[in-house]
């Protein structure tokens, strides 16, 4: 099993947000975690990536058998976990291509591989940028600096394509995208699908799932996974709304 989340609870600013999440993800699978606003979806994503001001209060997470929660964020990344941010951070003055290269070299170093050749790296980046339909001018700009919402999301997927993580957690990567951009992002994600990798899509709407077909869909509400199912669960959610899950749970 690639990722095993067991009874995970976490607090943000003193408030209990995750209240016992259980989730298993195998290599080769695509999971979608859906849920209403405030249900804890983004908190789950950030906790998995290792955000330090989010306090884990219980449970465990193993990643390829290792204790993920014991690892600092940079080690999680090097071990093959990638978080696509809901709100990618602007870092003026740090060149986009520098960050990409430093990230890739950090991963290669952890794997005992030599640093990437500068020429190979650039041609790899250019090829992936073409796939993401990004202009090469983004290379030399500050990380996400002045990017539009859609450009930031494409940049997240670009980073993912370069780093080729074992597990990609994409936190509302679809939000704020028009339909053309959504297709590009979906194509990027699909290009990474592989029997050795897994993807967890955190999303509010099922729209993205028209383009990336999930193996499993989970509904997160009030800090717990209330219901799991296949692709049809997402469609049913869209028809009947999140209240339906909450009510059926109570009943």
């Amino acid at each position: 099993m690639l990722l095993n989340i067991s009874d995970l609870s976490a607090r943000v600013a003193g408030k209990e947000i995750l209240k016992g999440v259980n989730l298993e993800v195998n290599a080769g699978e695509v999971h979608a975690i859906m849920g209403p606003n405030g249900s804890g979806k983004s908190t789950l994503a950030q906790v998995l990536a290792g955000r330090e001001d989010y306090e884990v209060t219980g449970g465990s997470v193993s990643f390829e058998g290792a204790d993920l929660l014991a690892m600092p964020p940079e080690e999680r990344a090097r071990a093959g976990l990638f978080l696509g941010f809901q709100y990618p951070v602007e870092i003026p003055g740090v060149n986009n291509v520098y960050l990409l290269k430093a990230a890739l070299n950090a991963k290669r170093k952890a794997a005992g591989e030599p640093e990437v050749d500068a020429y190979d790296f650039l041609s790899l980046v250019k090829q992936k940028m073409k796939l993401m339909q990004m202009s090469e001018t983004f290379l030399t700009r500050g990380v996400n600096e002045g990017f539009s919402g859609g450009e930031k999301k494409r940049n997240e997927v670009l980073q993912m394509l370069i780093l080729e993580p074992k597990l990609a957690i994409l936190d509302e990567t679809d939000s704020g995208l028009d339909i053309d951009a959504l297709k590009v992002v979906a194509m990027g994600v699909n290009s990474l699908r592989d029997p050795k990798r897994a993807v967890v899509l955190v999303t509010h709407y099922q729209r993205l799932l028209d383009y990336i077909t999930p193996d499993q869909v989970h509904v997160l509400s009030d800090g717990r996974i209330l219901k799991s199912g296949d692709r049809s669960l997402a469609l049913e959610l869209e028809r009947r709304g999140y209240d339906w899950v909450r009510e059926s749970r109570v009943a």
Partner: protein
Amino acid sequence: MSPAQHSAALRSFEEQWVARAPGTRAPGAREPGAREPDGLTGLRERALRRFLQLGLPTSHDESWRYTSLRSLASQSFTDAPRAAALGFEQALALEHSRALLGDRPLADAEAATLVLVNGYPLLPPASRPAAGLEIRTLSALARENPGLVARHLEPLPDAEELRWLLLNTALGVDGVHIRILGALATPLLILHVGSAERPDTVAYPRVIVEAAPGATATVLEHHIQHGAESPLSNSATLLALERDARIEHYRVFATGERAVHFDTLQVRLDRDAECRQFTVAVGGGLVRASLDARLNEPGASLDSRALLVGHADRHVDCVNVVRHAAARTVSRQTARAIASGTSRVVFNSKVVVDAGASQSDSQQSFRGLLLSPSAEIDSRPQLEIHTDEVKCAHGATTGRLDPNMLFYMLSRGLDRQTAQSLLVYAFLADVLTGMGQSAARSAIEGELIRQLPDSQKLQEFR
């Protein structure tokens, strides 16, 4: 601070004055501090009197609130030695200058380099200076044309923050006068070397740069230390830009960790003159960098950028006063400060817009970044406006590294030190990227990278 604590330092300055009196030494005497008779004695005496009246700055003085001179006040100072006594040679200077000027032919670097050791020119100004330059020693010029020198030393400053300039005027023995006549192809490097066997010595380097109408040049002043000790350096530079002149000026403080430095930079701008100025503090133990700029005629503009690096227990105090004295004048002040260890950085800036300086436009932007819990950054932007119809903006913020930026980079696998250094470097980029002199920029970056915590990896990002 009681006057009694002042007395040792002040008394020693008075003694230096007495030793400089014409007639106390034979003409041609080469002892440090000996001055041959010239026509400036009266002016110097007035400067000394005014300095003694003001006394040494204390924490009661508004612009010295954060910088204590308590320990300095109890020391006695004697004149720092002349160059010949120190073993600092032109060849050594050229090594520095070639690094700073980029890969230029030796002859170019030689023609464009002036070395002042403790304020005394190391060699007579180059016999074949770069085209478009006239260079004289101040001591010679003061004898031959005291009126010209006096014109630049007057009026004596009355602002309390410029009192070290008064002392430089009173006790300075030598320096250089440079007139830039046209467009200089090669940057002009003034290498200030502080060198002494004992720290209780003092030097008074003085540089006067005149830019003729329409002249353009890059002028770098680089302050370094030779040997284990550095004298107290009380340096002063005047940039006088005549109409349409354009100067890019750098002053870089890169002396040793115990060095004490008071530097005053005066900028005088005539009609449509443009000065771009960089102040970089990457060395020294105590550095006080003053800027006194006057935009005297319509259309003049000043773009001043400071990069203040607090490292270990360094104390950096930067104080800018920019006066808009004419209509349609423009000033920009940008300062970026970082403080690590137990260092402290102070930035005070003041813009004064005189009555009649309508349609003036000024901006002050200060950002400070604290890298350790024991470091401190203080800033105070001020505005004094005596006319309507002006555009004046100022902003000052100080904080720590943005945890969101840091987490973002960690989540991409960068180690914490690299991520932090990269963020610090990015923070300073606003100032660095504006530097037009790429070799100087690269030398400054190298020095910065050496001083940022855990920053070796940054080399690959340059």
